[in-house]
């Protein structure tokens, strides 16, 4: 019996780390730009298919393909900022919500056209780790570790580099940052690019452990909202912790109640936290 629990906790932790990675991007974008990115899920789905194509068409092993996914995410994100967001960045939130949603429609629309909505899967194996009765798939361990590594890299970038500090400065006060000589337009675009790169790589990682369709991103986007609200909107580290909490709920709580109730719990948590403690359970800032 205890094995089942340990198994679930480890599984939940590893899954939660990937969820966290997805949500970090969303949170970074909110923290710096005050934009709720409704194209997050679509970009995650894009990440899934890019890594799939790299693997099936060019034989690039998914974990190496991640480098390409990140580069592509950065470029696409910055492009999206200038095309869809720059004009409305100071408009009321309805505009940015709809602008990012229209980007999502575009990606999903073209994606459906190309890939239809049938499921795809990436067939790789890294073996498994066993101790006692517990077996953990190597791919899950790898995604968990890579998620931690990406989060760590993001933190070093935000706190130790000149550009990273500029991003934090812009998130605190855009006018003040501009007065320090920071090109804030570029920083906003860069932040969106990083957020998208994180979304796409999280999507790519998820694709290595679960089957996916072009519509899968939507589910993870909604999960990311829950995670962000749990950890505090705008706080990247909070997102990671929120992700772990959500992973735990999915894997551990389901030992006691049916899986189909998980979304009920998740979205009730979302609404309740927004009402009771909008700054999130962990409440921090960038």
């Amino acid at each position: 019996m205890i094995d089942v629990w340990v198994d679930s906790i480890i599984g939940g932790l590893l899954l939660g780390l990937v969820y966290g990675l997805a949500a970090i991007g969303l949170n970074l974008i909110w923290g710096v730009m005050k934009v709720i990115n409704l194209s997050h899920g679509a970009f995650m789905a894009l990440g899934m298919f890019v890594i799939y194509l790299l693997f099936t068409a060019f034989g690039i092993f998914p974990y190496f393909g991640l480098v390409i996914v990140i580069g592509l995410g950065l470029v696409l994100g910055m492009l999206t900022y200038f095309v869809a967001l720059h004009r409305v960045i100071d408009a009321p939130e309805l505009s940015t919500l709809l602008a990012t949603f229209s980007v999502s429609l575009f990606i999903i629309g073209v994606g459906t056209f190309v890939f239809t909505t049938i499921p795809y899967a990436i067939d790789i194996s890294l073996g498994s780790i066993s101790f006692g009765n517990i077996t953990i798939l190597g791919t899950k361990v790898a995604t968990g570790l890579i998620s931690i590594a990406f989060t760590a890299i993001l933190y070093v970038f935000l706190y130790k580099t000149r550009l990273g500090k500029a991003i934090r400065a812009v998130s605190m006060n855009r006018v003040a940052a501009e007065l320090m000589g920071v090109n804030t337009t570029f920083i906003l675009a860069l932040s969106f690019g990083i957020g998208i790169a994180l979304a796409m790589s999280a999507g790519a990682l998820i694709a290595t452990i679960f089957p996916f369709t072009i519509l899968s991103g939507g589910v993870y986007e909604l999960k990311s909202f829950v995670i962000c609200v749990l950890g505090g909107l705008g706080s990247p580290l909070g997102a990671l912790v929120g992700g772990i909490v959500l992973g735990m709920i999915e894997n551990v709580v389901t030992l006691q109640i049916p899986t189909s109730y998980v979304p009920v719990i998740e979205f009730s948590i979302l609404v309740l936290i927004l009402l009771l403690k909008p700054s999130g359970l962990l409440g921090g800032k960038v």
Partner: protein
Amino acid sequence: MKKPDISLWWITIAVIVLIVIPVVTKSPILRESVFLILLYMTLALSLNIILGYTGYVSFGHIVYYGIGGYVTFSLIYFYGINLIVAMIIGGLFAAAIAYSLGQAILKLRGAYFAIATIGVNEAVKALVNNLDAIGGAEGLYFNIKVYNAYGGAENAIWLSYYLMSALIIITLIVNWYIKKSKFGLGLMAIREDEDAAIILGVDTRKYKSLAYMLSALFPGIAGGIFFFKNGNIEPENAFHLVKSIEMIFMVMLGGFGTVTGPVLGALVYERIRGLLLINPLFKNLHIAISGVVLLLIVLFMPSGIIGYVREKIAKIRRYIE
């Protein structure tokens, strides 16, 4: 009470003309397409009360359409209650849920409110998925015999059509009266500056809750009619988040905060969508094209068709609102 003026007359007459066309031609194809347009108009006008007048971005507004649909459908399915009674109960139930929920979530502003409404929709959808008593994830299907009480399936469809027609006219008139009333003035004050509104004496909490309640009532009834006609209801259909965004799209396209805007927006949106679906080249790309069109509107015509015309020709302002 204010007397109806020209802006209400012409749009009501236009809608009535639209309603009459399938009746005169007896064309089922036209009827189906007009039914859909009327449904969209009702949804868009309802959302307009909370989004357009009050300025609260209700992103998961479709939840009330789904709730009304489920209540109506269940009442007919399990208890054989008459459609008209059932749909009114369904609408009132949706409105009651909105009112009580509004007490809590209307405290949130801006994006926080938007996310909360998405959360509400997803939570309700997930909950209904689990309620086996009302069909769970598979949903409920009418036995064809249900329609016998209404003189057969064909008559039942026509009944749905007339009920939807009546609903849109009522929604339209209510919308206009809200806009032209003291209540509406209070709502618009909240939209422009909630802090200023409360200082000016507007009981913002009460007004917001009432507006939210009203904006849930009509979608609740519309959901009842739609799923009755449909003969089947399931969570994926009833609480489809994309439909929520379509509602916002229609209000934005026509011009939010006006009475004529959402009506026009719904008409144009349904036509564009229909054309894209018919054209074989665009059929598979219609979602992507909708995305591009939406983006263009957000970026270059943020006040919608009516708003755009209003800015260009200030003189006709009072006739087109």
